[in-house]
C-alpha cells in the first residue's frame, strides 16, 4: 500500500568518503614526487640541452660561450634546409588534407551506422598501420611504388604524398572517432525531428560539432607526417628530401648548432600545434 508519509530520506554523503579518497590519492604515496620529477627530467633535459646550444655563439655543441642568434640566421641561409622544409610542408599539408577527409568518413562509417557484421574488423583494418612495424610498411610501399612506376612511367612527389596520406589516416581517425562517440546522438535526432534531411543534419549539426575532433585529427596527422623518417627515406625520390631526412644526413657528419636551431624551430612548431589543440578542445567544452 502506498503511503505518502513514508519518509524518503536521501542518504547523506558521508564525510568518510572524502577521507577515503584522500587516502587512495596517488599523490600521497611515498616517493611519488621523486618519481614524477625523475620522469620530467629524463624526458625534457635533452630538449633543454638542444634549445640552449642552439643559441650558442660557437661551433661546439658541448661548450657554452655566448648567446647568439647566429645559427638561426645560418639555418635560414642554408639552401638545403630551406628546400627540405618546403618539401616537408608540402607533403604534410597534402597528406593531412586527404588523410583527414578519409579519417572523417571512416569515423562516421564506424560510429553512425546500425551495428553490422565485420564492424570490429573494419575498425581493426583502419588501425592496422599503427600495429605494423613501420619498416615493413616502408619496404612494401617502396616495392609497390616501384612496380607502379615501371608500369606507368609516372614519377614525382605524388608517391611520397600518397604514402604519407595512408599512414596519417589512423592518427587522424582516432580523435575524430572519439569525438563522435562522445557526441550526443539526440542532437542529430533533434535535427531530423526539425525537418533536416540526413545530409542537412550532417552539414549543419554533425560536422560543426565534430570540428574540434577534425582539427585534432588534422594536427596529429600533420605532426606525424612532418616527423616521419623511415617511410620517407625509402619512398622519397631524388630531390624529394624532407626535413628529417636532411637533418639525418647532416648529423652523419656530426651535430652542428645549425641543426640544433632547425630542431628547435620544429619543436616550436609542434608545441604550437599542441597548444592550439588544447585551446580548441577546451573552448568547445
Amino acid at each position, binding site marked *: *500500500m*502506498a503511503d505518502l*508519509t513514508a519518509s524518503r530520506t536521501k542518504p547523506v554523503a558521508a564525510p568518510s568518503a572524502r577521507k577515503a579518497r584522500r587516502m587512495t590519492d596517488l599523490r600521497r604515496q611515498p616517493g611519488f614526487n621523486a618519481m614524477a620529477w625523475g620522469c620530467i627530467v629524463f624526458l625534457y633535459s635533452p630538449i633543454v640541452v638542444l634549445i640552449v646550444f642552439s643559441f650558442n655563439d660557437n661551433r661546439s655543441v658541448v661548450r657554452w660561450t655566448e648567446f647568439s642568434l647566429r645559427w638561426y640566421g645560418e639555418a635560414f641561409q642554408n639552401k638545403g634546409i630551406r628546400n627540405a622544409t618546403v618539401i616537408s610542408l608540402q607533403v604534410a599539408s597534402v597528406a593531412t588534407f586527404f588523410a583527414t577527409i578519409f579519417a572523417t568518413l571512416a569515423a562516421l562509417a564506424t560510429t553512425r551506422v546500425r551495428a553490422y557484421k565485420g564492424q570490429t574488423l573494419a575498425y581493426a583494418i583502419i588501425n592496422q598501420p599503427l600495429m605494423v612495424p613501420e619498416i615493413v610498411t616502408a619496404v612494401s610501399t617502396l616495392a609497390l611504388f616501384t612496380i607502379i612506376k615501371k608500369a606507368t612511367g609516372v614519377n614525382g612527389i605524388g608517391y611520397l604524398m600518397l604514402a604519407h596520406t595512408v599512414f596519417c589516416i589512423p592518427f587522424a581517425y582516432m580523435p575524430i572517432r572519439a569525438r563522435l562517440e562522445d557526441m550526443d546522438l539526440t542532437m542529430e535526432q*533533434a535535427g531530423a525531428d526539425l*525537418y533536416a*534531411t540526413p545530409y542537412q543534419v550532417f552539414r*549543419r549539426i554533425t560536422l560543426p560539432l565534430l570540428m574540434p575532433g577534425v582539427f585534432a585529427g588534422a594536427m596529429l596527422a600533420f605532426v606525424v607526417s612532418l616527423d616521419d623518417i623511415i617511410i620517407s627515406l625509402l619512398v622519397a625520390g631524388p630531390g624529394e628530401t624532407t626535413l628529417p631526412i636532411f637533418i639525418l644526413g647532416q648529423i652523419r657528419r656530426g651535430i652542428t648548432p645549425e641543426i640544433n636551431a632547425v630542431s628547435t624551430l620544429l619543436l616550436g612548431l609542434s608545441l604550437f600545434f599542441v597548444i592550439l589543440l588544447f585551446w580548441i578542445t577546451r573552448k568547445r567544452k
Partner: protein
Amino acid sequence: MPAEAAAAKTRATDPSEPHMILVDHVTKSFGRGEQAVLALDDVSVTIRPNEFFTLLGPSGCGKTTLLRLIAGFELPTRGQILLDGQEIGHLPPYRRPVNTVFQNYALFPHMTVAENISFGLEMLGKPVKEIADTTARMLDLVRMEHLAGRHTAALSGGQQQRVALARALAPHPKVLLLDEPLSALDLKLRKAMQIELKRLQSETGITFVFVTHDQEEALTMSDRIAVMDTGHILQVGTPRDIYNHPARRFVADFIGDINIIDAELESVSGDRGRITFPGGGTATAQLQTASMRPGRVSLAIRPENVELTDPGDARATTQGEIENVVYFGVGSNVHVRLRDGSELIARSAEVKGQTGDRVGVILPDEHLQVIAD
C-alpha cells in the same frame, strides 16, 4: 482475451472518431530471436485534436518507445500509426509534421537561442521574413527575447527548457511530443513549468503528447491520460476517471495512495456488486469491468474516502483497531487493523482516536471499486 476487452480495443481505434494520432495495433520489439525484447505489445490508442494527452507509467513500460515511434526515431515492428488520417509509421522523422522536446533538451550548442528556434523553419525552406517573424514570436511566447543572441550552453535549466519548447513549437507542428521534459528541473521550477506548458498548449492549440512517470504531473496537466505498464496500455481516461475509477489494480496502485482490500463478490446486478468482507460487514460496490463473476475480488478505496466512527455506529461497514496515527501537515493518516488482520489507511484533517482505540470503519458505497488484477 475477454470479448469486452477486444471490443474496447477496436473501439479505441475507430477511424471515424475525430483523431490527431491513431496508434493502431502497434507492436515494437527490439533485438532478434531469443534476445528480443517486447517494448510495446499490440497497443492501440486514439489521441484527439487539441488534446493534452499524457503517457504515464513506470520506467520500462514502453511510454518513451511509443513517443519515439510517433516521432519516427523507431519504426514499428507491426501495426500502423496514423496522423490526421495519413499513415506516417514508416516515414523518416524529417517528413513528419511532428516535433519533439527531448528529455535533455538536445539544444544545438554551436547555435544561438534564436538560431536554435529558427532551425526547423529554415529546414522547411520558409521565406526569410517569415522565419524572422515566427522566431521573434516564439521568443516572445517563451519570454526569452532578451537572450536571443546567447549561446545555449550559458543558459540555466529552465531557460534551456523554454528554448527547447520554442524550437519545437516554431514550425507549428500538428503534434508536439514531450519526453519527460520537466524531470531535470527542481520542484519549484517544475511546478511553474507545468502551468507554463498548459498555457502554451491552449495558446497554440497544438496537440501535446506528454510522457512522464510522475502521476501528480499527469493529473495536473492532462486532458486525458493513458496508464501504461510492461508494453500495454491499461486504461485511458480523464485524470478524474483514472483517479476515481481505476479499472485495474496496477492503475489504482500507481496513481495516488489507495487501499486494496480482499473481499468476496456475492452477486452482480448491472454494474454493481454485493460484497462481503472477510472480517464481517457488507457493502455495494461499483464494478470496473463488466465481466466480473462472483468470487474473491480486490476492492479499492482512496484513504480520504474512508471514514472512522464509533464502534457502535450503525453506518459502520466493518470494525477495526487503530494501529498508528501519522501526521503529515495538512492531515493525518490513520492506520487501522481490520478484524481479518488486513491493514487500511484512513486520511482526514482531524483525528479523534489514538493508537489502540477500537473504531467503526465506514466504506461509502459510492467510493468502493471492484477492480481487476
